C-alpha cells in the first residue's frame, strides 16, 4: 500500500484533494514542531543531580502567541473550507439542466432510477436498474438519494462523493465526473450484516457511449413495462 489518495475522477475531488494536502502540510508542520520540541526538551532538560528546574509559572506573551497562531490558522481553514463546501453542497451550487437520477438504497443494494427518454423523473418512462450507476463524463449529475430501510451511505471513492441515504428523507447531491472508467459504489454507513458487500457498479461513459447505452435501456424499458 502506498500513501496516496485514490485516483480522482470528479471536479469536486480536485478541490477536496487540494484542501486535503493543504491541511496535510499544516498539520505535518505543527506535528514536527511539537514532536521535535518535546524530544529536544526531553534531551536537553533531562534530569541531572544538583540541577534545579527554572521556577516559573508561565508567560503571558507565550500564551498569547500560542493561542493566537492556532486560532488564526483555524479560522483561515474554516473560511477556506467553507467556500469549498458551499461550492459542493451549497443550495445555490446545484447546476441547472443536470442529469437527475434517483438512487434508492435498501439492504443491500442500490436501485438507480433513470428519468427515461424525456429526461424527467417521475413519469412512466422512468426505468430502474439494480446496482448499476451509469453516467456521462463532463456533465453534472444530480442524485436524489433515498433509503427504504436503514441508513446507508452513498460512497464513490474516486468521485469523492459520500452522502448518507436516510429513510424518510430525500437528500440531493451533485457532482461532475472528469474521467471515464469503471468504479464502485460502496456503502459507508453500517447497515446490517451485508454492509460489507453493499456495492454497485459505476460506469462513467464518454458522452456518445452514454447516449447509446441510455437509448438502449430506455427502449428496453418502454418495450416491457
Amino acid at each position, binding site marked *: 500500500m502506498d500513501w496516496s489518495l485514490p485516483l480522482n475522477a470528479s471536479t469536486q475531488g480536485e478541490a477536496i484533494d487540494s484542501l486535503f494536502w493543504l491541511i496535510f502540510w499544516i498539520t505535518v508542520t505543527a506535528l514536527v514542531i511539537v514532536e521535535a520540541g518535546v524530544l529536544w526538551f526531553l534531551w536537553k532538560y533531562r534530569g541531572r543531580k544538583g540541577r534545579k528546574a527554572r521556577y516559573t509559572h508561565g508567560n503571558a506573551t507565550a500564551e498569547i502567541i500560542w493561542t493566537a497562531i492556532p486560532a488564526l490558522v483555524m479560522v483561515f481553514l474554516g473560511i477556506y473550507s467553507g467556500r469549498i463546501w458551499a461550492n459542493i453542497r451549497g443550495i445555490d451550487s446545484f447546476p441547472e439542466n443536470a442529469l437527475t437520477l434517483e438512487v434508492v438504497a435498501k439492504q443491500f443494494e442500490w436501485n438507480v432510477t433513470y428519468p427515461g427518454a424525456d429526461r424527467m423523473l417521475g413519469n412512466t418512462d422512468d426505468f430502474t436498474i439494480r*446496482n448499476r450507476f451509469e453516467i456521462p463524463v463532463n456533465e453534472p449529475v444530480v442524485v436524489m438519494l433515498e433509503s427504504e430501510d436503514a441508513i446507508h451511505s452513498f460512497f464513490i471513492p474516486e468521485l469523492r462523493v459520500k452522502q448518507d441515504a436516510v429513510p424518510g428523507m430525500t437528500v440531493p447531491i451533485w457532482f461532475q465526473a472528469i474521467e471515464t472508467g469503471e468504479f464502485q459504489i460502496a456503502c459507508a454507513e453500517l447497515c446490517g*450484516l451485508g454492509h460489507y458487500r453493499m456495492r454497485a457498479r459505476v460506469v462513467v461513459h464518454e458522452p456518445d457511449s452514454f447516449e447509446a447505452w441510455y437509448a438502449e435501456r430506455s427502449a428496453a424499458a418502454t418495450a416491457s413495462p
Partner: protein
Amino acid sequence: MTRKDWTRGISALWVVAIAACGGGGDAGGAGGAESAGGEDAAAGGDAAPAAAAPAVDPAVAATIAGGVEFAGVHPAMTEIDMSEEPVCLDKYNQGPPTTENAVGMDGRLANVFVYVKEGVSGEYPTPSEPVLLNQEACRYLPHVQGLQVGQTLLIKNSDAVLHNINTQPTANRGFNISQPQAGMESRREFSRPEVMIPVKCDVHGWMSSYVGVVSHPYFSVSDMDGSFSIGSLPPGTYTVEAWHELYGTLSQEVTVGEGETASITFGYSADMANADVPMEEPLVIRHAHAGEHETAVVAGAGR
C-alpha cells in the same frame, strides 16, 4: 438517612433494571432463552391436546392427488441481471437466469403449496431428517416447500458469495443470519404452523423462497405440470388449500374413503394476479389481513 434506606433503594434499582430487561425482551418477541436444539422447539407451539395421531394402516390409507390449472398466459419471465456475481452467473450455461414467481407448463401452475388445512387432528411425530433449503447459483432451491413443525430446515450455501437468510414470520420467531462462505450450513426450526413464511436474501434482491410450516405431514407442492399428491391420509373429509405467491389461495372440501385416491383440481387464472395473498398461520382463527402482510407479499413478488 439510614443505611437500610439506602440498601432498599439500591435493591429497588436492581428490580427496575431486571424488570426493564425482562419486559423489553418479552415485548420484542425475542425474550427467553429458547434452545436452538430441534427437540425442544418441536415440543413447543400450542398444538392441540396431546392425542397421538392415529397410525394410518397403509392398506386403508387414502390419497388426495390432482393438478393446478392456470387459465391465461403466464406473465413474461424477467431476466435477472446477475453480472455483479460472476460466481453465480457462471453456473448458468443455458441462457440467463429469470424470475420464477409464476412458472409452469402451458395451462398449469407450478410452485403452488397444497396442504390439508382442516380435518386432521392429533399430533404427528416430527421427522428426524431435515428439509434442505439450498442456495445455489444465487437462487433458492427449491423455491417453495413445506415442512413440519419442529422439523429442521437445513439452510446451505453452495455459492462462494455472501448470502443472508432473512425471514420475518408472524407466528414464529424470525431470524436474519448470514453465510459468507460456500459450504456453510445453518439449522433452524419453526415451532408453530404458518403458511407461508417468506425467505429472502437482502444481498441478492431477486432471491426469494417460501416455506410452509404445517403440523402434520399432509402437504405437497405442484410440479411444472401442476400436479401434486398428498398420500398416507386416514380416510375422512378434509379442507384442502392451495397457496400461490402471486395468485393467492383457493380451497375446497374433499372426502376420501379407505384406500381411495381423490382427484381435485385447483383453477387459477391470470386475472388473479395481485390477489390478497395471506401470509399467516392456518388452523387458528383468521384475522383480517393487516397491511404488513400485503407488504410482505409485494416484497416477495419482486415487483
